[in-house]
């Protein structure tokens, strides 16, 4: 079923929208959730929550790209669940490692203009990604958006894990320079 047809079901408040979404995007969203949470059961609950959020959001929302819309919901739900869970202990998904890697390029500390800074930060990151060659941008997004493991990225791009780690290290250094030059306190 194509996305337009699935969206039509949502807008008609037809519950068939949920299984249609699950059939088409279940694997995609489950992969995102499992990368972050590591646990199959947690991931499945997270994906079920995604369908509920989508049901509540559409209408009035009409996402231009359904896959990205669902993926973002899943990522946020999984991230929140992981944060809640890891408040007590470290989780077994890739997220703690990914956050550690991103933390390498900053020294911490809150800004009083956090919200404004976050918007500017998003814009700066998008500018950084726009200047990357397509493959490097995809490697970065696979790691830091999809939370893919190094092994999965290596297999996907025909690289060794060491080469992926080195590429990501260089990209983080480059992002650090990019953000520092634009005045972000790292």
């Amino acid at each position, binding site marked *: 079923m194509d996305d337009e047809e699935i969206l039509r079901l949502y807008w008609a408040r037809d519950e068939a929208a949920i299984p249609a979404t699950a059939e088409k995007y279940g694997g995609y969203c489950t992969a995102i959730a499992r990368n972050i949470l590591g646990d199959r059961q947690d991931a499945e609950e997270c994906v079920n929550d995604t369908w509920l959020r989508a049901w509540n959001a559409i209408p009035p929302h009409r996402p231009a*790209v359904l896959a990205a819309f669902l993926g973002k919901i899943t990522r946020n739900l999984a991230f929140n669940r992981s944060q809640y869970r890891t408040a007590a202990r470290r989780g077994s998904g890739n997220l703690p490692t990914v956050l550690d890697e991103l933390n390498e390029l900053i020294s911490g500390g809150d800004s009083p203009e956090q919200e404004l800074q976050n918007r500017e930060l998003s814009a700066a990151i998008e500018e950084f990604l726009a200047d990357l060659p397509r493959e490097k941008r995809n490697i970065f*997004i696979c790691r830091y958006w999809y939370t893919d493991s190094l092994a999965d990225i290596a297999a996907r791009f*025909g690289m060794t894990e060491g080469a992926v780690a080195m590429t990501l290290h260089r990209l983080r250094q480059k992002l650090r320079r990019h953000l520092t030059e634009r005045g972000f306190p790292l």
Partner: protein
Amino acid sequence: VTGKDLYEALDDIREDWLLDAGTPPNHKKRIRIYLLVAACLCLLAIGAAAAKSGVGAGLLQLIAVEDDSETGYDLLAGTVRFPTGALTGEIREVPALIRQQIKEHTPYSSRLPNVWTQAFPSAAEARDYIGCDALRGLDWEPTEAQTTLRVIGDRRGRIQSVWLETAYRSGEIRLQASSTLRTEHDSGEGRIGHRTTEEVDFTESSFLTANGAECRVVTSTPMESGYLMMDGHLVTDGVLYSLHLAYLEADAPQAEELLHRWADLMS
């Protein structure tokens, strides 16, 4: 700004990029296709030559790599895949050690579980540990500094390749001599090369050693530190030998002399 801020800020990136990254590519980069075709053609040629002359394969193809974050080069080396039975030293204990590393590996470990590394007091002791007749030693004047053995295995611990590197020093010239031996369990294409984040140009050349073997040479323009790089590669009896030199412009004649001397000794 925290890592969490960066993670959350990524949430707003363009959706077409998300889909692009989330969809496996239908084809690999053009350069990789070129590499594959080049490798196949060259391996066919090498196979025919080896069948005719009975000698080991040589170095095949140089591919320059350059993008906005790194420069470097790749070489395809047509080395022999030795049966693991050709490794007769204590290295035969390594598969069990690799299997143990794989078993004990945790997702947070920065160490690759299938790579086993050990330092040796001398290159000669490391060669004894490997116990392969085809592996040549290097007996020359530069001062030997340290020797590292790296063994790469597959998930079952079977040895895929053995890499032995010894650092030397001759005045201000730094040298790293390495030997790479691949086994029957290594299905890779035998690519070697060098990468740097600095913007340098690489030039390829070759010369014949005193024994008539071809030594492929890749030299760089100076790096920010003022050092230049020169790599020599040759294949003898199916083993790949490489020498990496870092030197200042004033030492260029001596570095070139060392490279030629090394190549004569290893061929």
